[in-house]
């Protein structure tokens, strides 16, 4: 069961889209059915709809041992420049924002999925060891994403992005190398000046090479995988306040032999409130995954206590995801409260390599159902700090509240200029 939970962590990360910022996180945890600046990460053509923007995050507090560390700090922005009355250019970048492929690799690395027999006497206390620890492979650096686009007559916008993250350590008898090279192409089409159709394709090539001749036995492993996704949605304006948002997505990830894919679609509805927004949405996804038996020629064992050999398993499931979110300015124009929920119903089938069913039935992964947050900003929202609040905080004494004093989980910000 512990092995299942390891896989679940990897799969949850793999299937979570780019909704990592405080606004998205605190109002439904999916960006599929609302407009938000983070859509530029997947579809850079959407930047024209937001104007000149700076955005970033002070990070997310995560517990590591006895201390709290902040991860996922990043910054970026874009500028839009009109070169003629009918044409605009957009140029932008984000720095240090971990790509989805980077996060997936880190999740795989930290999960202990690649537990193998310790031939190298790496661990003094156990006969099993994480293969990636023996290799001493680091996590990719950089995470630089740059993009540029053009908008014609405010009707059609096209943008192209490129991104890179990597790790390299090379000495006389070692060569450790990870490279994530990718890019995206985005389109926004304004239909009748009322409705917006958005489509994007993202491609990442993940290259992993590990060679260490100083160990006994020597280690040599290499792989090159392609990850990509296709997203499309339509903001169909029904009235001044109401929109319907049908969407479609297809996504496949491949990291060191772990392959997953999600394909599906859904429909959402969002309604503008007085100084706020409410949205609901539902989508169906067909999910499938395959897990390897070996890495670098070594058999993979379960990281759980029974340490049994891992078989070449496959998973497939039908998922229905229901979510909602609401944000509203309350009391003051600079103060917004947000709350949202996200529930995944999943019917999973797990089989071995001979298609023998190992598990079948309703399955629940580690998905947080409800979150809430606040935003502090200027009256015109030109500057906005989005904050995800610790869910434990309101239950405690205000002078001692939060998980070990943690009041806020994530802070992100956006500035229009």
């Amino acid at each position, binding site marked *: 069961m512990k092995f299942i939970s390891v896989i679940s962590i990897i799969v949850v990360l793999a299937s979570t889209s780019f909704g990592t910022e405080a606004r998205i996180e605190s109002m439904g945890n999916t960006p599929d059915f609302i407009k938000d600046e983070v859509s530029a990460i997947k579809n850079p053509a959407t930047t024209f709809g937001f104007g000149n923007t700076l955005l970033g995050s002070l990070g997310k507090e995560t517990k590591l041992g006895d201390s709290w560390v902040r*991860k996922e700090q990043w*910054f970026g922005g874009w500028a839009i420049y009109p070169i003629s009355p009918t044409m605009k250019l957009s140029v932008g970048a984000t720095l240090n924002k971990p790509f989805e492929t980077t996060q997936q690799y880190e999740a795989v690395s930290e999960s202990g999925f690649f537990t193998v027999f310790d031939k190298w006497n790496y661990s003094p206390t156990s006969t099993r060891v994480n293969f990636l620890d023996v290799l001493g492979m680091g996590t990719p650096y950089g995470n630089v994403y740059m993009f540029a686009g053009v908008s014609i007559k405010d009707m059609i916008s096209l943008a192209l992005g490129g991104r890179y993250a990597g790790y390299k*350590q090379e000495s*006389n008898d070692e060569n450790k190398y990870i490279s994530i090279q990718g890019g995206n192409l985005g389109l926004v089409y304004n239909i009748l000046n009322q409705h917006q159709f958005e489509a994007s394709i993202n491609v990442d090539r993940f290259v992993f090479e590990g060679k260490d001749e100083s160990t006994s036995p020597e280690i040599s492993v290499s792989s090159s995988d392609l990850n990509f996704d296709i997203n499309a949605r339509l903001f169909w304006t029904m009235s001044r306040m109401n929109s319907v948002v049908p969407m479609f997505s297809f996504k496949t990830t491949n990291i060191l032999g772990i392959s997953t894919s999600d394909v599906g679609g859904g429909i959402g509805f969002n309604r503008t409130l007085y100084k706020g927004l409410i949205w609901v949405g539902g989508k169906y996804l067909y999910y499938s995954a395959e897990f390897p038996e070996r890495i670098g020629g070594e058999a993979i064992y379960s990281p759980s206590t029974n340490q049994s050999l891992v078989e070449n398993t496959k998973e497939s499931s039908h998922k229905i995801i229901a979510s909602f979110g609401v944000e509203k300015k309350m009391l003051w124009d600079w103060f917004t409260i947000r709350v949202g929920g996200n529930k995944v119903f999943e019917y999973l089938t797990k089989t071995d390599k001979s298609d023998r069913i190992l598990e079948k039935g309703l399955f629940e992964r580690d998905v947080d159902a409800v979150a809430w947050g606040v935003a502090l900003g200027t009256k015109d929202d030109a500057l906005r700090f989005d904050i995800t609040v610790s869910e434990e905080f309101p239950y405690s004494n205000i*002078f*001692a*509240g939060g998980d070990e*004093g943690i009041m806020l989980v994530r802070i992100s910000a956006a500035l229009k200029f």
Partner: protein
Amino acid sequence: MYSFLITLAVVTSILYATESRIESMGKRDIFFRDDMQVFKNPATIGIFGNFVMGTMGFVNDAIDTSIVPERSFDSAMVFVDSDNDSVSVSVPYTVYDTVYGKRTDVPTNQWFGVVYNYQLSKTLGVFGGAAFNRDNELDLFYDSLRTVIQTECLTKLALPEKTAFPEVRGKMDLMLGAALQGLNVGIGFSKASQDLKFIYDSTEYGSDVSLTSLSLGMETQAGTHSIEAYARLSMISYSNSTPDSAIDMPATTDNSLEIGARGFIKTNLKGGIVFVPALTIAKNALFNRTYSRYSGGVGMNLRLDGGLFWAGLEGEYFINTKDSTSYDSAANVERSGYGAHFNFGIEKSLIWKWLIVRVGGSKYIGIRTTKSAGNSLREWVENTADDGSSDDVLGFGIGLNYQSRLRFDITLNEALPYFNPFSNGLQNSTNGAHMVLRISSTFSL
């Protein structure tokens, strides 16, 4: 009334400088102007006006920060030699202290100073300035290496601690210049020294150290544009004698040189974007080590309503060497690399005119190669995400501004907003337990 004046006198005698402003809005001030630049280029006193400045110092008690002169690169941390003393090669323009890896639980680098302009005639003005107790880049450079040398000497001979190179005293900066019809020229001088002697077996031994910098700067305006250039020659003179002559150091002077230039080109784009090309060449040398860097790039800044936004991109090449000596017989080490910095910063008055909120980011990514004794290691490096120094990715702070004359700039612990101040405070934070990391201030005269 008297109590107000006393309070003001106390405050103005303690708190004046703006390192916090730089630190909390992008970490580097190479692409925008700040009062602190009078130390880099004394000619800029002619454009900044009259003010007193100072700082209560900084604290840096982040759990994972240790006292090493190594720049806080997120790297493999595998060294082909046992020596890791690669002093920072790409420090911010004027804020160095936390970059040099100083760790302190109590406020450190407290200093104060003043600059003043006096108009002699319609076309000619003179200006001058002084600051005391300030850790300038040379002091920090020496301080970071003296600890390494000290360890090497003491380990070899097991001598009394006082035989090693001591901390310097009497830190001061003096500046003087003239303004003539749009041309400002200035000269700067800084000095710190120590002469430490002891009697052992009726013979006098000991070390003496003298740190001297001489800088020349100019600033000139052409229409709405401006050009600045400076050159600084620094000398560290030292000698050491011990009962064991094997590690005696004869009187030696190591010279360092830094040359820089930048332009402020004002345009009409987007309400007055100012483009700033900049170039810096620097070589620092001390004991058996040299640290060279060559950097250049372009930035922009833009005045906002009640604020400023800036961003810049800068390429860099560096090469550091360490040669073996009589007291350090380890193999020669050469560490070199290239990379790029991207920085941005923003400050804006929020809610009230007297409250300024600042935030900024800094990202460096590059390739570094270390060679020693026929071995080599090549790796990609980047600045650490979050170590509480002036070289990590993000920073934020506030400014308290009284009628644009008195300004307190405060660097806040980035973890501060996440923790309940009434509970355990920041005790569980890897950024350290302090809420405020630096307080500096200026007061216009």
